[in-house]
């Protein structure tokens, strides 16, 4: 159905795609894998006609074999419909769900008729959403779901999904994968991009791996192993550092009967009673919007969170890694040095020469690649931006480190580097509190797992299984 042949694309000096051929057939889920920056998003953007290729040809062929070129004018509109769920959300936050769907699907309706059609469409697609809800009030999961609904609303035959599961909870991932399979079973073609290998094994028929813009592997998923894919992606599997057993030290964070006022109003979060010791990594497993954000931000001392009741004691200096690096972590047009020193400088005057030297040292130490102290942060890839944030936070040697979803959207390599940083911070005596939307990451990383659901901490038995924790996250009773 979709055929891309000999596609090349460069951005300035970067060769994003180098003679890539790729296809997806009707009834097939074709996974696309690769490190950050391998060219996956670029490839699907070209397939969707969002971006012209420098060389090569992109064809969408329906069962009736109508040729398609993405930028043809309206009269030769293809009879085969193609939808892209882009990596970055493309919804209008101030609009309702229904309005966003209408916009993406080209509907003419408004008012009541729009509401009716939106509700029907949502029901038909089978991913529940409140049609009248304003998007900015939705959780990240629901926004991701909306992106998928938008893509499905125009009843496509080809579906391009660029990291659709990055923010979803395990159960939601399962639902989505089931929907993807059903779509293929009805004769659709799916291109599925993910950094999570288990998902690929669960859903895909075929897999293509990109590495620095070239295809390093194409084949049937059944014939692959996680190791063979990792090798194709990065040449070698990232080494998992040994877990060093750390004896926890004194209490650094202590919350008792803590009640917090949520940022968007509503019932307070809590009561929460917990502690975290020096040298310990406490993982908080929770689905977006269950109060973990308020808890973590209260511990980090951000002023927008107000305490309603109870005690919260945090001893020592706190370092905070926000979940959204682009809106809260990095100022893209600032230089790396300027980003590095944010919140660090206490002197009245800045000695930029000295600070740049500090920054260069930290860039080397934290393995930040893609720029030097003077380059703009926008020149860094997301993974390297995240490393820069860790360099900023950890080089201050905080006594408490609070990290929100620190590896979201990062590839195996980058994520492994971040994990190593979290572990060594703990090893150096910091109390580390980390939340992740990826349950496996929490289970892998944390010394102790706490689950938050509906604003309350749910205790899970020590060594509880993945499924038990996952159900607790959804607020289901734990055995």
């Amino acid at each position: 159905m979709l055929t891309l042949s000999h596609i090349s694309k460069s951005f300035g000096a970067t060769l994003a795609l180098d003679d890539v051929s790729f296809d997806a057939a009707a009834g097939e889920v074709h996974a696309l894998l690769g490190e950050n920056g391998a060219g996956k998003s670029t490839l699907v953007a070209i397939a969707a006609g969002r971006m012209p290729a420098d060389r090569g040809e992109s064809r969408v062929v329906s069962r009736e074999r109508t040729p398609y070129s993405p930028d043809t004018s309206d009269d030769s509109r293809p009879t085969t419909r193609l939808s892209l769920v882009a990596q970055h959300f493309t919804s209008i936050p101030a609009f309702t769900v229904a309005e966003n769907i209408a916009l993406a699907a080209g509907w003419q309706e408004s008012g009541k008729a729009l509401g009716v059609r939106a509700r029907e469409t949502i029901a038909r697609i089978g991913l529940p959403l409140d049609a009248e809800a304003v998007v900015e009030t939705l959780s990240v999961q629901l926004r991701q779901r909306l992106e998928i609904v938008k893509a499905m609303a125009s009843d496509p035959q080809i579906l391009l999904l660029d990291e659709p599961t990055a923010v979803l909870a395990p159960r939601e991932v399962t639902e989505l994968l089931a929907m993807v399979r059903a779509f293929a079973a009805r004769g659709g073609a799916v291109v599925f991009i993910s950094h999570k290998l288990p998902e690929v094994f669960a859903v895909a028929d075929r897999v293509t791996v990109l590495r620095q813009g070239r295809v390093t592997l194409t084949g049937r998923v059944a014939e692959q192993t996680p190791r063979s894919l990792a090798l194709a992606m990065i040449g070698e599997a990232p080494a998992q550092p040994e877990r060093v057993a750390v004896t926890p030290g004194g209490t650094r964070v202590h919350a008792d009967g803590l009640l917090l006022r949520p940022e968007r109003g509503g019932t307070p979060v809590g009561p929460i009673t917990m502690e975290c010791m020096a040298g310990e990594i406490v993982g908080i497993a929770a689905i977006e919007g269950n109060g973990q954000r308020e808890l973590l931000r209260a511990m980090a001392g951000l002023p927008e969170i107000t305490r309603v009741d109870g005690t919260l004691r945090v001893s020592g200096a706190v370092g905070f890694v926000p979940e959204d690096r682009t809106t809260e972590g990095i100022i893209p047009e600032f230089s790396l040095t300027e980003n590095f020193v944010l919140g660090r400088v206490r002197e009245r005057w800045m000695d930029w020469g000295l600070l740049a030297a500090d920054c260069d040292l930290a860039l080397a130490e934290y393995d930040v690649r893609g720029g030097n102290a003077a380059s703009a942060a926008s020149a860094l890839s997301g993974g390297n931006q995240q490393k820069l944030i860790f360099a900023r936070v950890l080089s201050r040697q905080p006594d408490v480190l609070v990290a929100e979803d620190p590896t979201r959207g990062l590839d195996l390599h980058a994520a492994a580097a971040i994990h190593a940083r979290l572990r060594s911070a703990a090893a150096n005596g910091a109390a580390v509190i980390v939340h992740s939307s990826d349950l496996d990451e929490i289970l892998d990383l944390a010394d102790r797992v706490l689950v938050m659901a509906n604003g309350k901490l749910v205790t899970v038995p020590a060594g509880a299984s993945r499924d038990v924790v996952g159900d607790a996250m959804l607020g289901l009773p734990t055995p």
Partner: protein
Amino acid sequence: MRLAPPSSNSRWRDVGVTAGAFGLGLLFLALFLLVAGFDVPLALGALWRGAFGSWYALTSATLVRATPLILLGLAFTLGSRGGALNIGMEGQFALGAMAAAWMGTHTGALPGVVALPMVLGAGMAAGALWMAVPVLLRLRFGVTEVISTLLLNFVAEAAVSYAVTGPLQEPSGIYPQSASLTMAARLPKLLPMSRLHLGLLIAFAVAVVMAVVLKRSRWGFELRAVGAGPRVAEVSGRIRAGRLLAVALLISGALAGLGGAVEVSGVSYALYLNLSPGFGFTAIAVALLGRLRPGGVVVAGLLFGALEAGAGGMQRDAAIPAVAVQVVQAVVILTMVVAANSGQRTANGND
């Protein structure tokens, strides 16, 4: 609404772009004059003579006009670097002028070294106080400063009108103007046979201080961070953005007030109804064309001072009516902004 702050390392390119844009503006100007049926060489000659043609034109026309434009351009720059648009400089200028006129007629026998700082200080305090209203409205009620400062311009106009017919009116009570400032409260002239006054050097000094503060001080760095990424500044920089911005806006108001005080103390020596021909709005163009950099604002302010002085020359010597001169200025500004913008974009390499 946030303005794109300048990217680093592009100073010389900016200067080139601004200069090129100005040249292109002149070209368009010549075209307009041709189409409108004026004598182009005569008009352009008059423009040049009015701005640079003589020592007098340069110092008394161009530089005297540039002074308030630079001060107000810097005022706008400070707010904008923190992400706030001060559209109310016209009002702060008026209030600054009012306070300076009051102070400058009440310094009695005090010598200049005492009287001048009091006059300028009063202007700054009044400008800051006038700005305190939008700042409070923003902090307390979330009212955007763009509209509140704009509305306050009209209120300031009424306030000046009241002052010059009421409490500040000159002693005879006839003329809608204040009494003249005492000699000690007037800014000294820089050159003989010229109206150029110390205000220009004050404007330069403010530019230098602002450049240093923005670049080298922690406060300036934090302000730029708030402007470029308010959430990042708060969350990752632990900066109290609201308070910092409030201070920046108050200083912006103070600088606009200083502009008014300098105009009263250096040029008009009394408060009048029409003290500003719209400096507060022209200065926005000055600041933006100066790419929100103190040095750039100085250059753009000088260019605009020359343009206005030259416009006077065109009326005087080439009989081009004032209304046509307004068209000329608009054409020059539009050309400059288009040229500067496309120059900036090609330099950044996107779209």
